[in-house]
Protein backbone atom coordinates (compact mmCIF):
# COMPACT_ATOMS: atom_id res chain seq x y z
CA UNK A 1 0.00 0.00 0.00
CA UNK A 2 2.39 2.69 -1.11
CA UNK A 3 0.46 5.78 -0.16
CA UNK A 4 3.06 8.10 -1.58
CA UNK A 5 2.66 7.03 -5.20
CA UNK A 6 -1.04 6.34 -5.56
CA UNK A 7 -4.13 7.82 -3.98
CA UNK A 8 -5.39 4.62 -2.33
CA UNK A 9 -7.06 5.05 1.02
CA UNK A 10 -6.56 2.39 3.67
CA UNK A 11 -9.33 1.72 6.17
CA UNK A 12 -8.53 -0.61 9.04
CA UNK A 13 -11.25 -2.90 10.35
CA UNK A 14 -11.59 -3.93 13.99
CA UNK A 15 -10.21 -7.32 12.92
CA UNK A 16 -6.93 -5.67 11.99
CA UNK A 17 -7.44 -6.06 8.25
CA UNK A 18 -6.54 -3.13 6.03
CA UNK A 19 -9.21 -2.58 3.40
CA UNK A 20 -8.10 -0.62 0.37
CA UNK A 21 -10.44 2.04 -1.00
CA UNK A 22 -9.91 4.05 -4.16
CA UNK A 23 -11.09 7.67 -3.71
CA UNK A 24 -12.58 9.35 -6.76
CA UNK A 25 -11.10 12.61 -8.00
CA UNK A 26 -12.54 15.89 -9.16
CA UNK A 27 -13.23 14.88 -12.77
CA UNK A 28 -15.18 11.70 -12.04
CA UNK A 29 -17.16 13.48 -9.37
CA UNK A 30 -17.88 16.41 -11.65
CA UNK A 31 -19.25 14.03 -14.28
CA UNK A 32 -21.45 12.41 -11.65
CA UNK A 33 -22.60 15.85 -10.53
CA UNK A 34 -23.42 16.84 -14.10
CA UNK A 35 -25.48 13.68 -14.66
CA UNK A 36 -27.36 14.30 -11.42
CA UNK A 37 -27.88 17.90 -12.46
CA UNK A 38 -29.37 16.81 -15.77
CA UNK A 39 -31.68 14.33 -14.02
CA UNK A 40 -32.80 16.95 -11.55
CA UNK A 41 -33.36 19.51 -14.26
CA UNK A 42 -35.38 16.99 -16.27
CA UNK A 43 -37.56 16.14 -13.27
CA UNK A 44 -38.06 19.81 -12.55
CA UNK A 45 -39.10 20.63 -16.10
CA UNK A 46 -41.43 17.61 -16.20
CA UNK A 47 -43.07 18.54 -12.90
CA UNK A 48 -43.38 22.19 -13.88
CA UNK A 49 -45.22 21.18 -17.06
CA UNK A 50 -47.45 18.74 -15.19
CA UNK A 51 -48.16 21.15 -12.32
CA UNK A 52 -48.38 24.25 -14.47
CA UNK A 53 -52.00 23.56 -15.32
CA UNK A 54 -52.96 23.41 -11.64
CA UNK A 55 -52.53 27.09 -10.93
CA UNK A 56 -51.20 28.36 -7.62
CA UNK A 57 -51.66 25.01 -5.89
CA UNK A 58 -49.40 23.57 -8.58
CA UNK A 59 -46.84 26.30 -7.94
CA UNK A 60 -46.78 25.38 -4.26
CA UNK A 61 -46.25 21.69 -5.01
CA UNK A 62 -43.59 22.59 -7.56
CA UNK A 63 -41.68 24.63 -4.98
CA UNK A 64 -41.79 21.69 -2.57
CA UNK A 65 -40.52 19.36 -5.31
CA UNK A 66 -37.78 21.86 -6.09
CA UNK A 67 -36.79 21.90 -2.45
CA UNK A 68 -36.78 18.09 -2.28
CA UNK A 69 -34.66 17.77 -5.42
CA UNK A 70 -32.21 20.32 -4.10
CA UNK A 71 -31.70 18.97 -0.60
CA UNK A 72 -33.24 15.51 -0.17
CA UNK A 73 -32.31 13.91 -3.50
CA UNK A 74 -28.67 13.17 -2.61
CA UNK A 75 -29.46 12.15 0.98
CA UNK A 76 -32.18 9.70 0.00
CA UNK A 77 -30.12 8.03 -2.70
CA UNK A 78 -26.98 7.81 -0.57
CA UNK A 79 -28.90 6.00 2.15
CA UNK A 80 -30.20 3.34 -0.24
CA UNK A 81 -28.09 0.15 -0.46
CA UNK A 82 -26.21 1.41 -3.54
CA UNK A 83 -24.95 4.34 -1.47
CA UNK A 84 -24.90 6.67 -4.47
CA UNK A 85 -27.02 9.08 -6.47
CA UNK A 86 -27.86 7.92 -10.02
CA UNK A 87 -25.05 10.11 -11.36
CA UNK A 88 -22.45 8.59 -9.04
CA UNK A 89 -23.80 5.15 -9.84
CA UNK A 90 -23.36 5.78 -13.54
CA UNK A 91 -19.75 6.78 -12.91
CA UNK A 92 -19.13 3.71 -10.73
CA UNK A 93 -18.82 5.73 -7.53
CA UNK A 94 -20.34 5.43 -4.09
CA UNK A 95 -20.25 7.29 -0.80
CA UNK A 96 -18.81 5.46 2.20
CA UNK A 97 -17.64 6.38 5.68
CA UNK A 98 -13.92 6.68 6.38
CA UNK A 99 -14.15 3.19 7.84
CA UNK A 100 -15.31 1.76 4.51
CA UNK A 101 -18.81 1.19 5.88
CA UNK A 102 -22.02 2.44 4.26
CA UNK A 103 -22.71 6.10 4.95
CA UNK A 104 -24.85 6.88 8.03
CA UNK A 105 -27.91 9.18 7.87
CA UNK A 106 -26.25 11.87 10.02
CA UNK A 107 -23.11 11.88 7.86
CA UNK A 108 -25.12 12.02 4.65
CA UNK A 109 -27.17 14.97 5.91
CA UNK A 110 -24.07 16.85 7.06
CA UNK A 111 -22.10 16.31 3.86
CA UNK A 112 -24.99 17.40 1.68
CA UNK A 113 -25.92 20.46 3.75
CA UNK A 114 -22.31 21.60 3.74
CA UNK A 115 -22.43 21.74 -0.04
CA UNK A 116 -23.48 25.33 0.66
CA UNK A 117 -20.02 25.93 2.11
CA UNK A 118 -18.34 24.06 -0.74
CA UNK A 119 -20.25 26.20 -3.21
CA UNK A 120 -18.83 29.44 -1.84
CA UNK A 121 -17.66 31.86 -3.08
CA UNK A 122 -18.77 30.81 -6.58
CA UNK A 123 -19.36 27.55 -8.44
CA UNK A 124 -18.03 25.14 -5.84
CA UNK A 125 -14.68 26.91 -5.73
CA UNK A 126 -13.89 25.96 -2.12
CA UNK A 127 -14.98 22.38 -2.74
CA UNK A 128 -12.77 21.97 -5.80
CA UNK A 129 -9.76 23.60 -4.14
CA UNK A 130 -10.20 21.44 -1.06
CA UNK A 131 -10.42 18.27 -3.19
CA UNK A 132 -7.35 19.28 -5.12
CA UNK A 133 -5.30 19.82 -1.98
CA UNK A 134 -6.02 16.42 -0.49
CA UNK A 135 -4.82 12.96 -1.48
CA UNK A 136 -8.22 11.49 -0.61
CA UNK A 137 -10.14 14.11 -2.65
CA UNK A 138 -12.48 15.17 0.15
CA UNK A 139 -14.49 18.33 -0.13
CA UNK A 140 -15.36 20.38 2.95
CA UNK A 141 -18.59 18.46 3.50
CA UNK A 142 -16.74 15.14 3.34
CA UNK A 143 -14.20 16.39 5.87
CA UNK A 144 -16.86 17.34 8.38
CA UNK A 145 -18.98 14.23 7.86
CA UNK A 146 -16.04 11.82 7.73
CA UNK A 147 -17.14 10.41 4.39
CA UNK A 148 -15.34 9.41 1.22
CA UNK A 149 -16.41 9.05 -2.40
CA UNK A 150 -14.81 5.88 -3.77
CA UNK A 151 -14.86 3.72 -6.87
CA UNK A 152 -17.07 0.68 -6.40
CA UNK A 153 -14.77 -1.72 -8.24
CA UNK A 154 -11.49 -2.49 -6.51
CA UNK A 155 -8.21 -1.25 -7.93
CA UNK A 156 -6.37 -3.63 -10.27
CA UNK A 157 -2.85 -2.39 -9.89
CA UNK A 158 -0.63 -5.45 -10.12
CA UNK A 159 1.26 -4.70 -13.27
CA UNK A 160 4.51 -6.12 -11.90
CA UNK A 161 3.07 -9.58 -11.35
CA UNK A 162 1.36 -9.57 -14.72
CA UNK A 163 4.63 -8.67 -16.46
CA UNK A 164 6.54 -11.54 -14.85
CA UNK A 165 3.80 -14.04 -15.76
CA UNK A 166 3.71 -12.75 -19.33
CA UNK A 167 7.47 -13.05 -19.56
CA UNK A 168 7.36 -16.67 -18.38
CA UNK A 169 4.65 -17.41 -20.94
CA UNK A 170 7.01 -16.43 -23.74
CA UNK A 171 9.85 -18.64 -22.44
CA UNK A 172 9.32 -21.30 -25.10
CA UNK A 173 9.39 -18.85 -27.98
CA UNK A 174 12.42 -16.75 -27.06
CA UNK A 175 16.07 -17.68 -27.27
CA UNK A 176 17.66 -18.32 -23.85
CA UNK A 177 19.92 -15.30 -24.35
CA UNK A 178 17.00 -12.98 -25.02
CA UNK A 179 15.07 -14.48 -22.13
CA UNK A 180 18.01 -13.85 -19.82
CA UNK A 181 18.36 -10.32 -21.17
CA UNK A 182 14.74 -9.57 -20.29
CA UNK A 183 15.03 -11.30 -16.95
CA UNK A 184 17.97 -9.10 -15.98
CA UNK A 185 15.68 -6.09 -16.42
CA UNK A 186 13.50 -7.56 -13.66
CA UNK A 187 16.46 -8.39 -11.44
CA UNK A 188 15.03 -6.42 -8.56
CA UNK A 189 11.98 -8.72 -8.36
CA UNK A 190 13.51 -11.96 -7.00
CA UNK A 191 15.45 -10.82 -3.99
CA UNK A 192 19.13 -11.83 -3.96
CA UNK A 193 19.15 -12.80 -7.64
CA UNK A 194 21.97 -10.41 -8.41
CA UNK A 195 24.55 -12.67 -6.81
CA UNK A 196 23.89 -15.76 -8.97
CA UNK A 197 24.91 -16.24 -12.57
CA UNK A 198 21.59 -16.79 -14.35
CA UNK A 199 18.53 -14.76 -13.45
CA UNK A 200 16.19 -16.79 -15.70
CA UNK A 201 15.66 -19.83 -13.43
CA UNK A 202 14.96 -17.65 -10.42
CA UNK A 203 12.47 -15.47 -12.25
CA UNK A 204 10.79 -18.56 -13.72
CA UNK A 205 10.40 -19.76 -10.14
CA UNK A 206 8.75 -16.47 -9.23
CA UNK A 207 6.39 -16.90 -12.19
CA UNK A 208 5.48 -20.39 -10.97
CA UNK A 209 4.73 -18.93 -7.56
CA UNK A 210 2.59 -16.21 -9.08
CA UNK A 211 0.59 -18.84 -10.94
CA UNK A 212 0.01 -20.54 -7.61
CA UNK A 213 2.01 -23.69 -8.44
CA UNK A 214 4.79 -23.35 -5.91
Amino acid at each position, binding site marked *: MSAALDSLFTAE*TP*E*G*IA*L*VLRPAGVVARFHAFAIDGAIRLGLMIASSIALGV*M*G*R*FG*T*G*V*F*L*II*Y*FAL*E*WLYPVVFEL*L*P*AGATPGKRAMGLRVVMD*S*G*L*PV*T*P*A*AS*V*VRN*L*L*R*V*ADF*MPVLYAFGVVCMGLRADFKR*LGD*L*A*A*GTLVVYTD*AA*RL*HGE*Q*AVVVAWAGRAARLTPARLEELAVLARAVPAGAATGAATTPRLLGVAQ*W*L*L*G*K*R
Partner: protein
Amino acid sequence: MTPLHFETAYTPLWQELEDVLLRLEGRRKFGLLPRRQAVDAARLASLYRRSCEHLALARARAYPAHLTDRLDALTQRAHQAIYRRQGHGLLDLKQGLLIGLPQAVRAHRAYVAVATAVFALTTLAMGVACYLDPGFSLSLLHADQVRSYGGMYGDDAVAIGREAGGDWQMFGYYIMNNISVAFQCFASGLFLGVGSLFYLAFNGLLGGAVAGYLTARGYGEAFYSFVVTHAAFELTAIVIAGAAGLRIGHSLLAPGRQTRLQALQRAARETSVLLYGVVGMLVIAAALEAFWSSARWVAPAVKYGAGAACWVLVIGYLGWQGRHAR
Protein backbone atom coordinates in the same frame (compact mmCIF):
# COMPACT_ATOMS: atom_id res chain seq x y z
CA MET B 1 1.44 -24.45 1.14
CA THR B 2 1.29 -23.25 -2.44
CA PRO B 3 -1.32 -20.68 -3.45
CA LEU B 4 -3.10 -23.42 -5.42
CA HIS B 5 -3.34 -25.65 -2.34
CA PHE B 6 -4.48 -22.69 -0.31
CA GLU B 7 -7.17 -21.88 -2.81
CA THR B 8 -8.50 -25.41 -3.15
CA ALA B 9 -8.45 -25.97 0.60
CA TYR B 10 -10.48 -22.90 1.50
CA THR B 11 -12.67 -22.27 -1.53
CA PRO B 12 -15.64 -24.11 0.08
CA LEU B 13 -15.48 -21.73 3.05
CA TRP B 14 -15.31 -18.67 0.81
CA GLN B 15 -18.13 -20.00 -1.30
CA GLU B 16 -20.26 -20.50 1.80
CA LEU B 17 -19.53 -16.96 2.97
CA GLU B 18 -20.45 -15.64 -0.44
CA ASP B 19 -23.76 -17.51 -0.38
CA VAL B 20 -24.57 -16.15 3.08
CA LEU B 21 -23.72 -12.63 1.92
CA LEU B 22 -25.91 -12.96 -1.15
CA ARG B 23 -28.86 -13.92 0.99
CA LEU B 24 -28.12 -11.15 3.48
CA GLU B 25 -27.67 -8.44 0.89
CA GLY B 26 -30.78 -9.60 -0.95
CA ARG B 27 -29.76 -7.49 -3.91
CA ARG B 28 -32.42 -7.40 -6.61
CA LYS B 29 -31.90 -6.67 -10.22
CA PHE B 30 -34.75 -4.17 -10.24
CA GLY B 31 -36.04 -2.24 -7.30
CA LEU B 32 -34.12 0.00 -4.99
CA LEU B 33 -34.70 -1.67 -1.65
CA PRO B 34 -33.11 -5.05 -0.92
CA ARG B 35 -35.06 -8.12 0.07
CA ARG B 36 -32.97 -9.48 2.92
CA GLN B 37 -33.24 -13.07 4.09
CA ALA B 38 -32.49 -14.40 7.53
CA VAL B 39 -29.06 -15.98 7.99
CA ASP B 40 -27.24 -17.74 10.82
CA ALA B 41 -25.44 -14.79 12.40
CA ALA B 42 -22.98 -16.88 14.42
CA ARG B 43 -21.97 -18.80 11.30
CA LEU B 44 -21.56 -15.54 9.37
CA ALA B 45 -19.33 -14.10 12.09
CA SER B 46 -17.11 -17.17 12.15
CA LEU B 47 -16.88 -17.29 8.34
CA TYR B 48 -15.98 -13.60 8.34
CA ARG B 49 -13.20 -14.14 10.86
CA ARG B 50 -11.83 -16.97 8.76
CA SER B 51 -11.81 -14.84 5.63
CA CYS B 52 -10.02 -12.05 7.53
CA GLU B 53 -7.43 -14.60 8.62
CA HIS B 54 -7.01 -15.94 5.08
CA LEU B 55 -6.67 -12.45 3.66
CA ALA B 56 -3.98 -11.59 6.19
CA LEU B 57 -2.12 -14.84 5.38
CA ALA B 58 -2.41 -14.30 1.64
CA ARG B 59 -1.02 -10.81 1.96
CA ALA B 60 1.79 -11.81 4.28
CA ARG B 61 2.84 -14.62 1.93
CA ALA B 62 2.52 -12.34 -1.12
CA TYR B 63 0.13 -14.74 -2.82
CA PRO B 64 -0.85 -13.93 -6.42
CA ALA B 65 -2.83 -10.78 -6.91
CA HIS B 66 -5.97 -12.50 -8.20
CA LEU B 67 -6.18 -14.48 -4.97
CA THR B 68 -5.67 -11.55 -2.60
CA ASP B 69 -8.05 -9.43 -4.68
CA ARG B 70 -10.73 -12.05 -4.45
CA LEU B 71 -10.29 -12.34 -0.68
CA ASP B 72 -10.13 -8.57 -0.34
CA ALA B 73 -13.44 -8.10 -2.14
CA LEU B 74 -15.09 -10.90 -0.17
CA THR B 75 -13.85 -9.58 3.17
CA GLN B 76 -14.93 -6.07 2.31
CA ARG B 77 -18.44 -7.24 1.51
CA ALA B 78 -18.66 -9.24 4.72
CA HIS B 79 -17.31 -6.28 6.69
CA GLN B 80 -20.05 -4.05 5.29
CA ALA B 81 -22.71 -6.65 5.99
CA ILE B 82 -21.60 -7.24 9.59
CA TYR B 83 -21.09 -3.61 10.60
CA ARG B 84 -24.03 -2.27 8.66
CA ARG B 85 -26.39 0.17 10.29
CA GLN B 86 -29.31 -1.59 11.86
CA GLY B 87 -31.75 1.19 12.44
CA HIS B 88 -35.33 0.90 13.55
CA GLY B 89 -36.57 3.96 11.69
CA LEU B 90 -39.67 4.86 13.67
CA LEU B 91 -38.16 3.97 17.02
CA ASP B 92 -35.18 6.23 16.28
CA LEU B 93 -37.53 9.02 15.30
CA LYS B 94 -39.51 8.71 18.54
CA GLN B 95 -36.34 8.57 20.61
CA GLY B 96 -34.91 11.62 18.84
CA LEU B 97 -38.11 13.59 19.22
CA LEU B 98 -38.67 12.78 22.89
CA ILE B 99 -35.08 12.87 24.09
CA GLY B 100 -32.41 13.46 21.47
CA LEU B 101 -33.41 16.85 20.08
CA PRO B 102 -34.20 18.73 23.30
CA GLN B 103 -31.13 17.26 24.99
CA ALA B 104 -28.93 18.28 22.05
CA VAL B 105 -30.32 21.82 22.17
CA ARG B 106 -29.58 22.04 25.89
CA ALA B 107 -26.12 20.58 25.38
CA HIS B 108 -25.45 23.49 23.01
CA ARG B 109 -27.04 26.09 25.25
CA ALA B 110 -24.06 28.44 25.11
CA TYR B 111 -24.18 28.49 21.30
CA VAL B 112 -27.96 28.89 21.36
CA ALA B 113 -27.56 31.82 23.74
CA VAL B 114 -25.02 33.55 21.49
CA ALA B 115 -27.13 32.94 18.38
CA THR B 116 -30.25 34.22 20.16
CA ALA B 117 -28.41 37.32 21.37
CA VAL B 118 -27.07 38.15 17.89
CA PHE B 119 -30.42 37.59 16.24
CA ALA B 120 -32.51 39.37 18.90
CA LEU B 121 -30.20 42.37 19.30
CA THR B 122 -29.96 43.04 15.57
CA THR B 123 -33.73 42.66 15.23
CA LEU B 124 -34.38 45.02 18.14
CA ALA B 125 -31.84 47.62 17.09
CA MET B 126 -33.05 47.70 13.50
CA GLY B 127 -36.68 47.60 14.63
CA VAL B 128 -36.24 50.61 16.93
CA ALA B 129 -34.26 52.51 14.29
CA CYS B 130 -36.92 51.92 11.64
CA TYR B 131 -39.72 52.72 14.08
CA LEU B 132 -38.17 56.10 14.87
CA ASP B 133 -37.35 56.80 11.25
CA PRO B 134 -39.32 54.64 8.77
CA GLY B 135 -37.08 55.90 6.00
CA PHE B 136 -34.15 54.09 7.62
CA SER B 137 -35.57 50.77 6.40
CA LEU B 138 -34.59 51.89 2.91
CA SER B 139 -30.95 51.40 3.91
CA LEU B 140 -31.58 47.64 3.82
CA LEU B 141 -34.72 47.12 1.74
CA HIS B 142 -35.57 48.27 -1.73
CA ALA B 143 -38.33 50.85 -1.97
CA ASP B 144 -40.54 48.39 -3.90
CA GLN B 145 -40.13 45.80 -1.17
CA VAL B 146 -41.06 48.31 1.51
CA ARG B 147 -44.14 49.33 -0.45
CA SER B 148 -45.20 45.71 -0.96
CA TYR B 149 -44.85 44.99 2.77
CA GLY B 150 -47.00 48.02 3.45
CA GLY B 151 -49.54 46.69 0.98
CA MET B 152 -49.55 43.24 2.58
CA TYR B 153 -50.49 44.40 6.05
CA GLY B 154 -52.08 47.76 5.38
CA ASP B 155 -55.79 48.62 5.75
CA ASP B 156 -56.21 48.71 2.01
CA ALA B 157 -54.94 45.13 1.68
CA VAL B 158 -57.38 42.68 0.15
CA ALA B 159 -59.30 41.71 3.25
CA ILE B 160 -60.98 38.62 1.87
CA GLY B 161 -57.72 36.68 1.88
CA ARG B 162 -56.40 34.34 -0.75
CA GLU B 163 -58.09 31.33 -2.24
CA ALA B 164 -56.95 27.89 -1.10
CA GLY B 165 -54.47 27.51 -3.98
CA GLY B 166 -52.66 30.62 -2.80
CA ASP B 167 -52.16 29.05 0.62
CA TRP B 168 -50.48 26.08 -1.00
CA GLN B 169 -48.32 28.32 -3.13
CA MET B 170 -47.12 30.14 -0.04
CA PHE B 171 -46.59 26.86 1.82
CA GLY B 172 -44.26 25.69 -0.92
CA TYR B 173 -42.51 29.03 -0.93
CA TYR B 174 -42.00 29.05 2.84
CA ILE B 175 -40.66 25.49 2.80
CA MET B 176 -38.12 26.27 0.10
CA ASN B 177 -37.10 29.71 1.27
CA ASN B 178 -37.02 29.30 5.04
CA ILE B 179 -35.30 25.94 5.11
CA SER B 180 -32.69 27.20 2.64
CA VAL B 181 -32.04 30.20 4.91
CA ALA B 182 -31.63 27.88 7.89
CA PHE B 183 -29.24 25.61 5.98
CA GLN B 184 -27.22 28.65 4.96
CA CYS B 185 -27.01 29.76 8.61
CA PHE B 186 -25.66 26.32 9.48
CA ALA B 187 -23.31 25.58 6.60
CA SER B 188 -21.60 28.96 6.55
CA GLY B 189 -20.55 28.26 10.14
CA LEU B 190 -17.78 26.19 8.60
CA PHE B 191 -15.92 29.45 8.00
CA LEU B 192 -14.95 29.77 11.66
CA GLY B 193 -18.53 30.67 12.58
CA VAL B 194 -18.35 34.02 10.82
CA GLY B 195 -20.91 32.98 8.19
CA SER B 196 -23.44 31.91 10.82
CA LEU B 197 -23.05 35.21 12.66
CA PHE B 198 -23.46 37.07 9.39
CA TYR B 199 -26.64 35.27 8.34
CA LEU B 200 -28.14 35.50 11.83
CA ALA B 201 -27.46 39.23 11.94
CA PHE B 202 -28.62 39.75 8.36
CA ASN B 203 -31.92 37.98 8.93
CA GLY B 204 -32.32 39.85 12.21
CA LEU B 205 -31.82 43.17 10.45
CA LEU B 206 -34.32 42.23 7.74
CA GLY B 207 -36.97 41.19 10.25
CA GLY B 208 -36.31 44.26 12.37
CA ALA B 209 -36.57 46.59 9.40
CA VAL B 210 -39.93 45.16 8.32
CA ALA B 211 -41.35 45.11 11.86
CA GLY B 212 -40.14 48.62 12.70
CA TYR B 213 -41.44 50.09 9.46
CA LEU B 214 -44.86 48.46 9.74
CA THR B 215 -45.24 49.43 13.38
CA ALA B 216 -44.36 53.03 12.59
CA ARG B 217 -46.95 53.07 9.80
CA GLY B 218 -49.57 51.78 12.25
CA TYR B 219 -49.95 48.31 10.79
CA GLY B 220 -48.61 46.72 13.97
CA GLU B 221 -51.63 44.62 14.84
CA ALA B 222 -52.01 43.11 11.38
CA PHE B 223 -48.30 42.29 11.30
CA TYR B 224 -47.78 40.93 14.81
CA SER B 225 -50.94 38.85 14.79
CA PHE B 226 -49.72 37.38 11.51
CA VAL B 227 -46.23 36.44 12.63
CA VAL B 228 -46.66 35.58 16.31
CA THR B 229 -47.73 31.95 15.86
CA HIS B 230 -45.32 30.64 13.28
CA ALA B 231 -42.48 32.77 14.64
CA ALA B 232 -42.36 30.44 17.64
CA PHE B 233 -41.16 27.68 15.34
CA GLU B 234 -39.49 29.67 12.59
CA LEU B 235 -37.30 32.01 14.62
CA THR B 236 -36.37 29.24 17.05
CA ALA B 237 -35.35 27.01 14.15
CA ILE B 238 -33.23 29.73 12.53
CA VAL B 239 -31.51 30.41 15.85
CA ILE B 240 -30.85 26.69 16.40
CA ALA B 241 -29.43 26.36 12.89
CA GLY B 242 -27.18 29.34 13.58
CA ALA B 243 -26.14 27.81 16.90
CA ALA B 244 -25.22 24.56 15.12
CA GLY B 245 -23.14 26.59 12.67
CA LEU B 246 -21.42 28.37 15.55
CA ARG B 247 -20.60 25.02 17.13
CA ILE B 248 -18.99 23.90 13.85
CA GLY B 249 -16.98 27.11 13.61
CA HIS B 250 -15.95 26.98 17.26
CA SER B 251 -14.72 23.40 16.87
CA LEU B 252 -12.30 24.65 14.21
CA LEU B 253 -11.22 27.72 16.17
CA ALA B 254 -10.72 25.93 19.47
CA PRO B 255 -10.44 22.19 18.87
CA GLY B 256 -9.26 21.50 22.43
CA ARG B 257 -7.33 18.27 22.83
CA GLN B 258 -8.35 16.90 19.43
CA THR B 259 -7.01 17.74 16.02
CA ARG B 260 -9.05 20.30 14.13
CA LEU B 261 -10.39 17.60 11.83
CA GLN B 262 -11.43 15.35 14.71
CA ALA B 263 -13.10 18.26 16.47
CA LEU B 264 -14.92 19.23 13.28
CA GLN B 265 -16.17 15.70 12.68
CA ARG B 266 -17.36 15.41 16.25
CA ALA B 267 -19.15 18.75 16.07
CA ALA B 268 -20.80 17.77 12.79
CA ARG B 269 -21.95 14.46 14.27
CA GLU B 270 -23.37 16.05 17.37
CA THR B 271 -25.13 18.91 15.59
CA SER B 272 -26.82 16.67 13.02
CA VAL B 273 -29.62 16.02 15.53
CA LEU B 274 -30.20 19.78 15.67
CA LEU B 275 -30.57 19.88 11.90
CA TYR B 276 -33.34 17.27 11.93
CA GLY B 277 -35.10 19.42 14.51
CA VAL B 278 -34.61 22.56 12.43
CA VAL B 279 -36.19 20.95 9.37
CA GLY B 280 -39.11 19.61 11.40
CA MET B 281 -39.78 22.96 13.05
CA LEU B 282 -39.58 24.84 9.77
CA VAL B 283 -42.09 22.51 8.13
CA ILE B 284 -44.46 23.15 11.05
CA ALA B 285 -43.77 26.89 10.75
CA ALA B 286 -44.43 26.87 7.00
CA ALA B 287 -47.73 25.05 7.49
CA LEU B 288 -48.82 27.48 10.21
CA GLU B 289 -47.70 30.50 8.21
CA ALA B 290 -49.52 29.39 5.06
CA PHE B 291 -52.75 28.09 6.52
CA TRP B 292 -53.26 29.65 9.95
CA SER B 293 -51.40 32.96 10.15
CA SER B 294 -52.84 34.16 6.86
CA ALA B 295 -56.42 33.36 7.84
CA ARG B 296 -57.96 36.79 8.10
CA TRP B 297 -61.25 35.59 9.56
CA VAL B 298 -59.49 34.72 12.84
CA ALA B 299 -59.59 37.59 15.32
CA PRO B 300 -56.15 38.99 16.30
CA ALA B 301 -56.83 38.17 19.95
CA VAL B 302 -57.24 34.49 19.10
CA LYS B 303 -54.00 34.53 17.11
CA TYR B 304 -52.12 36.15 19.98
CA GLY B 305 -53.47 33.46 22.28
CA ALA B 306 -52.46 30.66 19.91
CA GLY B 307 -49.08 32.33 19.39
CA ALA B 308 -48.43 32.53 23.12
CA ALA B 309 -49.36 28.86 23.48
CA CYS B 310 -46.93 27.92 20.71
CA TRP B 311 -44.09 29.89 22.28
CA VAL B 312 -44.70 28.23 25.64
CA LEU B 313 -44.87 24.86 23.91
CA VAL B 314 -41.62 25.32 21.99
CA ILE B 315 -39.62 26.76 24.89
CA GLY B 316 -41.03 24.20 27.31
CA TYR B 317 -40.23 21.37 24.91
CA LEU B 318 -36.66 22.48 24.28
CA GLY B 319 -36.06 23.42 27.89
CA TRP B 320 -37.52 20.53 29.81
CA GLN B 321 -38.49 17.61 27.58
CA GLY B 322 -36.43 14.47 28.09
CA ARG B 323 -34.64 15.67 31.21
CA HIS B 324 -34.35 12.52 33.23
CA ALA B 325 -33.99 10.07 30.40
CA ARG B 326 -30.60 8.53 30.01
